[in-house]
């Protein structure tokens, strides 16, 4: 009797798995993806740059200043702050800007950028730290991966400024 029940349950399970297979492309795929997205998981801030803290409007473009990103313990990335100049198409070919990164009303870095006409080419430039909290760098010339870069992505020109002190918090 027990074996018979087990067999009935097995066939019910097999039928259910067929139903799952049949529903996957129409219902389950969308539902599962939405459920995964609803869990609140997000891509690591080392790749996305984190969340925007403030937006400053300039003549013809805007500057999004992100919250500082503090990498995890053994992650091979230095802490950084991301700045996005957008839209990249509206940026002058050469420009310089002073940015207040921590919101204290005083500029923290001076950024000079050369935006190539070919939007697939890499932009170049220099970041001058105006205080000890941030580090200066020049590109091309130094390459520290995700924490020190000037790049074009998704219609914006991204600059990541490495942080010297541990003032950053996730």
């Amino acid at each position, binding site marked *: 009797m027990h*074996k018979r029940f*087990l*067999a009935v*349950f*097995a*066939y019910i*399970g*097999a*039928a259910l*798995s*067929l139903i*799952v*297979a*049949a529903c*996957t*492309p129409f219902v*389950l*795929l969308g*539902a*599962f*993806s*939405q*459920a*995964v*997205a609803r*869990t*609140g*998981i*997000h*891509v*690591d*801030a*080392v*790749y*996305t*740059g984190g969340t925007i803290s403030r937006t400053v409007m300039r003549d013809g473009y805007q500057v999004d200043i992100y919250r500082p990103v503090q*990498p*995890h*313990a*053994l*992650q*091979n990335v230095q802490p950084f702050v991301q700045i996005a100049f957008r839209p990249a198409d509206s940026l002058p070919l050469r420009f310089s800007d002073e940015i207040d990164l921590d919101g204290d009303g005083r500029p923290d870095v001076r950024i000079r950028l050369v935006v190539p006409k070919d939007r*697939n080419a*890499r932009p170049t430039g220099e970041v001058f730290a105006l205080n000890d909290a941030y580090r200066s760098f020049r590109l091309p010339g130094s*390459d520290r*991966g*995700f924490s020190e*870069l000037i*790049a*074009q*992505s*998704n219609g914006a020109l*991204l600059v990541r400024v490495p942080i010297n002190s541990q003032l950053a918090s996730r």
Partner: protein
Amino acid sequence: MASAAIPHPKRRPPPFRSVTRSALLTLPIALWALLMFTPTLRSPGLNQHIGAFATIAFMTALFFLMMRTGKTYRWRRWFFVALGFLFPVGFIASLIHLRGSMSISLEHMLGGDTPFCHMVIPMIIIPAALTRTVIFPGSILPTASNPHSIAVMIALWLAFTLVLGKAWCSYACFFGGIEEGFAALPKHIKIRKLDPRLRLVPWALLIVVAVLSAALFEPFYCRWLCPFKTVTEFPTVTSVQTAIQMAIFVSLFIGLVVVLPFLTKKRTQCGFFCPFGAFQSLFNKINLFEIRFDRTKCVDCTLCQTACPTMALSAQSIREGKTLLNCMKCGACVDSCKKHAAVWHLKGTPVAVKPERARLLFLYGAWALATMLGGSILANSLATIIGFLPLR
């Protein structure tokens, strides 16, 4: 004068089922395939239509042959090898179309344009559970520049895993077909003796990769060990480190995916290296379908052991009438067994009582999902290839 003995012509075994019965059993799959490709057939594009029709015919014909001959592995292999060799074509073409290059640059990573692949799943679990963070430079939901998003791939994997368990590795993994193709090439096995402890390597690698990925907060396997970067996408070589990474990817690909499968007729990357395969083995515990051995018929000829592409059988396991945990339900052992001792089985039912019923229940789910995922890859790749042909 003694007459010379006339050799008996080699007789083909009688078909497993009649044509009519096989066709009737194939009908649901034919309709399913048509349904899957209806959106493609409704949209404009001759190449896409040809690709879709060819795939519908291919998948339906293979299922019909499975029904007609009673063999699973033999026909599944055609699909799987086609998937393995055509996937890179369509994938590389879409990469070049979307971003102009097969290599992935820093800009693409920042933009979330890295397609997510199932191999990453075991590496993201611990960091996602602890910090809700995905340590992969993709996007959670699909975007115009990255349709292969993290949520969609996880959802696909989840559905397949619920239905098939580790059979993901023989019906869905678009990488496994490449080595299965190379393993199918030689007539005879060149290296016969393989240390059974090699089966433990994927488990060890799974632990190492999961722990290192969680500690370093990066997908360690993708960064350093994935052989399939060679035929999909790879980091732009800009430094000594990326050059070393590329050298590792290419060496592993040539060794584990081309040379060793050719010499051993085994899926060496899947059986002796792939940490995702080890992870997927765990889901065989909750999956209803399995391969079992009818001990009353088994003569311990070890033909099944030789046929198994991932060494998922041992003398001990056969004596116990079971496969090992890493069985991917490809059906090679069942096809090779001359005594019909190796059988498909639905857990909870008596062994070898109605094995064909268990096989049918498994195959309908497996082939439906294979048509959905693998079929769409085949159709897309065929359309890409047709687009390259100088037909006009």
